[in-house]
């Protein structure tokens, strides 16, 4: 009787602890005072050994370990690619200015951002993540009875268990403050999805300014976990919103963009989304899902930087000032196209299949349009320069003494390079990659294959070869 009472008392105590938020997620810290010069921002990362003349952006897609390994192989290729730029021989890898990543690709991006070339040490990233069965470790942690108690709390979910494992086992408890202190490029943009408004949520101080939160105090593992927070498999990640407490002042572009509903709806939408974070009474908490839900190739944010003057590190302003001569964007997309039995049966698909398809298939289709938008932008920039030159040539022919009334806009050479399995010519080989599963556990030989195929696709890319020829 006494034992039963004691057991009941212990259970009651545990449930009380769980219920009163004793077990809670890692809380993102409040920002004391807004300062647009401080924090993890592109402008605060120096590149003393290089200029912006050759500006390189990489984007890493989602796709679990498959995506992490494909992007890893691409980084290995860039490390081994020697170029001549501004009179010096360099590695193309050292010219990378920005990496924007989603989900599985975020593991590689974050590790490279934090530890640089250590990424390539066989005993480091390969051992702690790439060739590791992370999936079973995540599963085993959920079977631990201690974690059952913690998971009973509404403030602590499966995603928070994942954060602890990634933090301890992969990212050595490093924070964005460590990235800021390092102060070196590439600028790592880890993207998640704001569940309520369905838009991209990027772990950079500009995003956290809106919420009066200090990104420097956030563990990088938390960003990576949010970025790879596949719906249902994990719980949404909660972030605290302290908006209105740090003296945040809207940037000038925001007031201007709010007038662009008719003239430029995407710009209007950007400011509309940004302002939803400023109302902390309406949204005291933000819930994040896998970055792939909003953009599975991580290209949307760089695309805004290429086409708009609104971001502090925007490229049009750099191009106007003659800082950028060559602009390179390499999209690494681990999209698959697995054979499915769904349409071979009249039966309704299972719930997991439905969730998986809803979360990934529409976005994969949308990714094609995102890549096309990049190519269209680059083609527009090329044609703008051509049009001006053609017009000037006609003018000189018809009226040799006449001059163009306005100066030629500064030109930039653009290279849009896509690395995806669709480009594999051999059908059997293509099928092999197109049917690889999305998981945090692949066979070692599959990881080896992924590391090799990225460089192979780059070698066969006309645009990549054209870039190398020009350097």
């Amino acid at each position: 009787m006494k034992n039963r009472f004691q057991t009941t008392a212990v259970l009651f105590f545990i449930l009380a602890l769980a219920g009163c938020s004793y077990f809670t997620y890692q809380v993102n810290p409040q920002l004391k005072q807004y300062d647009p010069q401080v924090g993890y921002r592109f402008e605060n990362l120096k590149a003393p050994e290089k200029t912006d003349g050759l500006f390189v952006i990489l984007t890493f897609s989602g796709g679990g370990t498959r995506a992490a390994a494909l992007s890893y192989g691409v980084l290995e290729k860039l490390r081994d690619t020697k170029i001549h730029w501004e009179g010096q021989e360099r590695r193309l890898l050292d010219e990378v200015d920005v990496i924007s990543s989603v989900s599985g690709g975020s593991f590689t991006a974050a590790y490279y951002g934090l530890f640089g070339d250590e990424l390539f040490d066989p005993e480091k990233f390969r051992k702690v993540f790439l060739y590791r069965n992370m999936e079973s470790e995540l599963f085993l942690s959920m079977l631990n009875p201690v974690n059952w108690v913690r998971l009973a709390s509404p403030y602590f979910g499966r995603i928070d268990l994942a954060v602890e494992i990634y933090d301890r086992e992969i990212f050595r408890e490093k924070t964005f403050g460590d990235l800021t202190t390092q102060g070196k490029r590439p600028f790592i943009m880890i993207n998640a999805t704001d569940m309520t408004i369905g838009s991209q949520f990027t772990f950079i101080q500009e995003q956290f300014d809106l919420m009066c939160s200090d990104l420097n105090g956030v563990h990088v593992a938390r960003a990576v976990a949010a970025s790879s927070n596949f719906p249902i498999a994990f719980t949404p990640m909660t972030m605290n919103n302290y908006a209105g407490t740090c003296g945040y002042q809207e940037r000038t572009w925001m007031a201007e963009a709010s007038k662009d509903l008719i003239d430029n709806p995407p710009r209007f939408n950007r400011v509309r989304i940004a302002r939803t974070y400023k109302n902390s009474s309406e949204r005291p908490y933000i819930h994040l899902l896998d970055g792939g839900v909003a953009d599975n190739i991580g290209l949307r944010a760089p695309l805004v930087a290429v086409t708009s003057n609104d971001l502090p590190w925007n490229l049009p302003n750099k191009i106007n000032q003659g800082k950028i001569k060559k602009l390179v964007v390499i999209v690494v997309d681990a999209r698959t196209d697995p054979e499915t039995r769904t349409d071979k049966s009249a039966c309704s698909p299972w719930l997991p299949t439905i969730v998986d398809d809803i979360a990934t298939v529409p976005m994969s289709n949308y990714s094609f349009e995102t890549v096309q938008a990049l190519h269209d932008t680059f083609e527009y920039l090329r044609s703008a320069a051509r049009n001006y030159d053609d017009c000037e040539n006609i003018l000189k022919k018809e009226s040799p003494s006449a001059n163009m009334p306005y100066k030629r806009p500064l030109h930039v050479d653009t290279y849009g390079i896509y690395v995806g399995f669709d480009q594999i010519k051999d059908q059997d080989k293509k099928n092999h990659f197109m049917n690889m599963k999305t998981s945090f556990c692949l066979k070692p030989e599959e990881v080896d294959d992924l590391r090799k195929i990225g460089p192979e696709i780059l070698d066969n890319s006309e645009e990549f070869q054209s870039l190398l020829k020009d350097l």
Partner: protein
Amino acid sequence: MPMEFVVVNYPEVRDVSIDGEVAGKTNDTLMLERGHHTFDLGIPKDYEPESVEKNVQDTTEIIPLIIDDFHPKEGGI
């Protein structure tokens, strides 16, 4: 995504800020995103008006929007 083009005319070479960020120089053809923008010439504030707002659209690299509003203050330049 089509871009827009502007030229901010001024008697001397100055920085041009678009929406508070330095975007290029006066009298150069500058590329920018379509829509509403605020233009100014930064510091020193020895020119008038302090800033101008324009809705930039339907321009080309050959026929940019010309912003002729800025001039030195009395006693400037």
